[in-house]
């Protein structure tokens, strides 16, 4: 048995070019399959990790998924703002332990600007109830002070006490609030959540920015210099959304109904877990389709392997016949061919895993930047191992065909030259 396997390996090595190409095809197919699975799992993980300890996300009435997407992940745009009065009614409700106002809409060179209260840094939790930590400096205290997410600071090369200018809207070309620069007072430690790509300022700063703005554009002739801003009433009049934590979590539905039936204006409260489940259900079909397509690609790769081995049988008639003449039985022939197929599949799967690791390391910063998905380098998880196992099993089944052919070939077949 051992000798046969050794022969199989040596024989395969002598045909390394053809088999090598087949191996590369299988490796690429496996990479694709594992990449689809890994991105699926990591995308979920990134989303789930982004917020923790929040019982309700409150915003203007819209879809639950959309509210969650813009309030927590800063993706997409808000359908409407909610008034400060409504926020106060919720924040001061006796069942509410704490509430964080969120004001979105401004940006700085593609990064979202979040207006919030100074409590944010003490209250906000992500992952497994982890707190936001400042790597440098301190939280904003006054107007025109900003705290940067770790990635903002890194990507734009900002340091403490730098001056930055915010622009209106998420587009990079939006009109700028050039006359009112912000001072960087703090930089957050990396979290792997949207906080990394966010610039945090106070709600008052957001009001101050828009003092001389009416209806989304600066009013011609009206200029309020930064030094006079303090004389105005900077209390926020509206916010985009709020994160709410309750005194006891069992009250979550009663509070949700209080918000949803709030008489003052149409509001929506969603449970983050429920909204995320809705999101997953929405994209489950897409995920399954992607997985099915990549499984097909693997099948094509393995069919290619079977074809290569079958085609090789013709060339190897002499080789196999000599082995038979030297005493190898039909069973040995079968074992040799099947082992070759499994060997190539296993090597392909392994190479695919290596390729995936290299590719995900190269693509990770880009994915984080563009999609906010944190792609981790790690040992393959249970699902991935199951996929690799399925690939190798299918490879074994595919190799049985050439194995069977070799088994059936008669001893004389390769020795009598056919003319």
């Amino acid at each position, binding site marked *: 048995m051992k000798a046969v396997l050794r022969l199989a390996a040596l024989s395969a090595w002598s045909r390394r070019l053809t088999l090598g190409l087949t191996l590369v095809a299988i490796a690429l197919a496996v990479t694709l399959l594992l990449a689809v699975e890994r991105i699926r799992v990591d995308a979920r993980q990134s989303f789930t990790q982004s917020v*923790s300890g929040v019982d309700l996300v409150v915003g203007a009435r819209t879809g639950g998924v959309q509210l969650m997407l813009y309030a927590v992940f800063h993706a997409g745009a808000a359908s409407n703002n909610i008034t400060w009065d409504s926020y106060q009614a919720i924040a001061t409700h006796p069942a509410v332990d704490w509430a964080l106002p969120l004001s979105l809409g401004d940006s700085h060179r593609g990064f979202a600007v979040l207006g919030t209260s100074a409590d944010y840094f003490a209250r906000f939790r992500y992952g497994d109830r982890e707190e936001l930590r400042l790597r440098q400096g301190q939280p904003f205290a006054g107007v025109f002070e900003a705290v940067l997410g770790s990635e903002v600071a890194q990507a734009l090369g900002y340091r403490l006490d730098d001056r930055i200018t915010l622009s209106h809207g998420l587009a990079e070309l939006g009109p700028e609030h050039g006359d009112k620069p912000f001072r960087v007072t703090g930089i957050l430690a990396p979290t792997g959540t949207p906080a990394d790509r966010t610039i945090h300022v106070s709600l008052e700063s957001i009001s101050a920015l828009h003092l001389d703005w009416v209806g989304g554009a600066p009013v011609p002739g009206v200029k309020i210099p930064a030094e006079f801003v303090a004389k105005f009433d900077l209390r926020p009049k509206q916010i985009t959304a709020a994160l709410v934590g309750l005194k006891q979590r*069992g009250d979550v539905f009663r509070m949700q109904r209080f918000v949803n039936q709030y008489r003052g204006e149409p509001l929506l409260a969603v449970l983050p*877990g429920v909204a995320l489940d809705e999101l997953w259900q929405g994209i489950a079909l897409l995920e399954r389709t992607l997985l099915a397509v990549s499984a097909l690609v693997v099948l094509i790769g393995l069919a290619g392997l079977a074809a290569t081995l079958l085609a090789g049988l013709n060339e190897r008639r002499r080789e196999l016949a000599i082995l038979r003449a030297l005493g190898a039985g039909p069973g040995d022939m079968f074992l040799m061919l099947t082992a070759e197929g499994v060997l190539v599949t296993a090597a392909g799967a392994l190479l695919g895993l290596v390729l995936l690791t290299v590719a995900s390391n190269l693509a990770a910063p880009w994915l984080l930047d563009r999609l906010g998905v944190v792609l981790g380098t790690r040992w393959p998880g249970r699902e991935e191992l199951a996929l690799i196992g399925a690939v190798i099993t299918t490879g074994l089944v595919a190799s049985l065909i050439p194995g069977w052919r070799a088994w059936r070939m008669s001893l004389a077949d390769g020795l009598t030259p056919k003319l």
Partner: protein
Amino acid sequence: MRKLLLLLALCLAPPLHAADDYRDIKWEALVPKDWDPARDLKALDFGKLQDSDPRAMEALEKMKALWDAAPTVPAMAGAKVRLPGFAIPLENKGGKVSEFILVPYFGACIHSPPPPANQIIHVVTKTPAGKLNSMDAVWVSGTLSLQYANTPWGSAGYRLTADKIAPYEEAKKK
């Protein structure tokens, strides 16, 4: 002989984790027997009311308030119970659900008005329970306690520290 004695002792010793350690309860057990939410509404004949009738609206409001303040059964505090329900995840730990809300009927809370306060249980797991999607049916075994916090709805509400969570399976008919 010694071996035999040991074997005998093992057989007689009380099992460490008996299956009937947790008492199977129904959701009705969480409602006080003398609680009659309809008492205040008996004066009204719903059959004669139109939807737009202000008395009907008032009755609905009253109903909601009653539901919100539904009382708990104090005797259930500390009870080790097992009961089935639908889970709505609240908190995740490394992809596993560590806290969720358990309700008795499908669709409760999300698509229809929530059930009475005494039919909602806030479940905290000792060890994260694995993957749960919204509205997955589960058996939960653990210790019940009453929540006491100052909310506008009084002290109503159950909390359960779960030792074990298993996917729900229909009980086999004997």
